[in-house]
């Protein structure tokens, strides 16, 4: 078969005398992990961006060929390692739906799942906000965000036994019930955290230097965002009201009140870096609101009881019927999907493919990074909020 020249060949073969190739990464701090960006530059202007990934490829799908459904959960944790709970939740929901037990899960378990997921969403967004500050040159917000995130890490460690990679949500239940006193401590944290969010807004969101660096930079139009499969804050930053927690109404989200935050172009134009950043900040506030509602339920009508067993509904053998099934859920980064193929005979799935939100969000970078200044490219990349564990899988 005749092999045609790829776009990469065409871009790199015919360099003009004034053009230069610069490698940004894979050890560059602002690439948020091991991502290499090959830039074709003309002075300070970036003419083309060519992302190279795979430095953190850990053969997720290859491993899944020899693991049972339950054994895959720790591997799922390690994809978006900043939001392990959300990864687990999506995965577990998919398997439960294939087994047909998703309606039998007790309400208390569902509320605990949503509670820990929203805590993890706040933690993930705090990293996104904090490191974005560093990318732009503001050091203090990073320290403040990490200080507050540490409280969440400690709480989730208390519940699951692990600081980042929890393996807490299991198929048909939970690892353990919440430890005694968790709800009270969580409530204390919320009381502590709310004023901190206001402080963070005063420090970074309304900071004139920060606005100058991000407003009007890296504008992503809604059409382009949809075509490139962007989801989560990337898509909502462009003004599209699309949140799978509302669209798919999974778990107990229909019973909870929250608003879908979208970018409005307050500082520059709609869909710029500042909008994407602001969507994340607003989502943290919404998550706080969701957590308060979960706590109310968990401390009143769904109170813990000594005979409550979070593993009671767990199936003895996890063998879904022969089928293929695609589950999607709203991760902090966007639409996380798993595509399962089950042969109906063994506990080992024939195929588990992960559709990672960061992977798709990153794919738009060559488009919106074309023709910008090198310093702005850092601002754009930071606003995409990628996790390389998930891009490379």
């Amino acid at each position: 078969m005749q092999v045609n020249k790829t776009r990469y060949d065409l871009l790199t073969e015919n360099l003009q005398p004034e053009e230069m190739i610069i490698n940004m990464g894979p050890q560059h701090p602002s690439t948020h992990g091991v991502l290499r960006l090959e830039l074709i530059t003309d002075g300070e202007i970036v003419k083309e961006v060519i992302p190279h990934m795979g430095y953190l490829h850990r053969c997720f799908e290859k491993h899944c060929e020899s693991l049972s459904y339950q054994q895959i959960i720790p591997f799922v944790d390690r994809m978006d390692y900043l939001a392990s709970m959300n990864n687990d939740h999506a995965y577990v929901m998919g398997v439960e739906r294939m087994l047909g037990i998703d309606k039998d899960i007790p309400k208390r378990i569902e509320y605990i799942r949503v509670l820990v997921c929203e805590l993890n969403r706040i933690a993930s967004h705090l990293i996104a906000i904090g490191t974005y500050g560093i990318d732009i040159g503001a050091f203090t917000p990073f320290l403040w965000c990490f200080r507050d995130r540490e409280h969440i890490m400690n709480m989730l460690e208390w519940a699951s036994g692990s600081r980042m990679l929890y393996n807490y949500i299991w198929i048909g239940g939970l690892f353990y019930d919440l430890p005694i006193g968790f709800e009270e401590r969580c409530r204390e944290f919320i009381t502590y955290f709310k004023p901190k969010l206001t402080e963070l807004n005063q420090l970074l969101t309304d900071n004139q230097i920060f606005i100058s660096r991000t407003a009007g930079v890296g504008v992503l139009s809604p059409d382009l965002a949809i075509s490139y499969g962007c989801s989560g804050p990337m898509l909502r930053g462009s003004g599209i009201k699309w949140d799978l927690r509302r669209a798919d109404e999974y778990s107990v989200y229909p019973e909870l009140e929250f608003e879908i935050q979208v970018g409005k172009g307050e500082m520059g134009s709609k869909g710029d870096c500042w909008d994407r950043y602001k969507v994340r900040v607003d989502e943290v506030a919404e998550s706080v609101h969701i957590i308060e509602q979960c706590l109310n339920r968990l401390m009143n009508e769904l109170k813990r009881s000594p005979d409550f067993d979070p593993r009671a509904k767990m199936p003895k053998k996890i063998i879904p019927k022969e089928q293929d099934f695609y589950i999607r859920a709203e991760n902090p980064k966007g639409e996380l999907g798993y595509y399962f193929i089950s042969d109906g005979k063994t506990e080992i799935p024939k195929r588990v493919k992960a559709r990672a939100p960061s992977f798709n969000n990153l794919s738009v970078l060559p488009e919106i990074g074309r023709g910008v200044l090198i310093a702005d490219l850092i601002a754009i990349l930071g606003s995409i909020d990628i996790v390389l564990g998930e891009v490379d899988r």
Partner: protein
Amino acid sequence: MMTFDEIKTLLTDKFGADAIMDAETSGLQPAILINPEMIVKVCEELRDNEKTWFDFLSCLSGIDHGIESNKFSVVYHLASIPYNRQLVLKVVKEHSRNSENLPVFHSVSGVWHTAEWHEREAYDLVGIRFEGHPDMRRILLPDDWEGYPLRKDYQAAEEYKGIKIN
């Protein structure tokens, strides 16, 4: 908003009866098996028709059906943001597993930009080439990697550039 059967009728009316090979309706998510030669036209129609508006490609997966069947397929998970609907399309081809000559499908990267990276991933891991793809390179594995790890006949590499793999 159209039902699954209405979408099927829409496609057969537009492209003739041979556009749809079959339909899978037993599982939780029904799927339409599309004629591999017509997949690009079908996708364009589903994206642009104002009754369907499948503007979002959630996922594209290349699949090896196993050594006995010698079949390869590509699965498209479409989503419509305006209508909040999902649809699964599949294309299947038989292939002899000849390593010189990879299975070839038509690329839908012209319909949704996001398909570009998904198809590169399918090429990288499952060894499916996409005709009409502008940048058919490996994406996750090194450029000089030999073989396609998710193929069922894949032999795990013993070393890479003199480094032992174990």
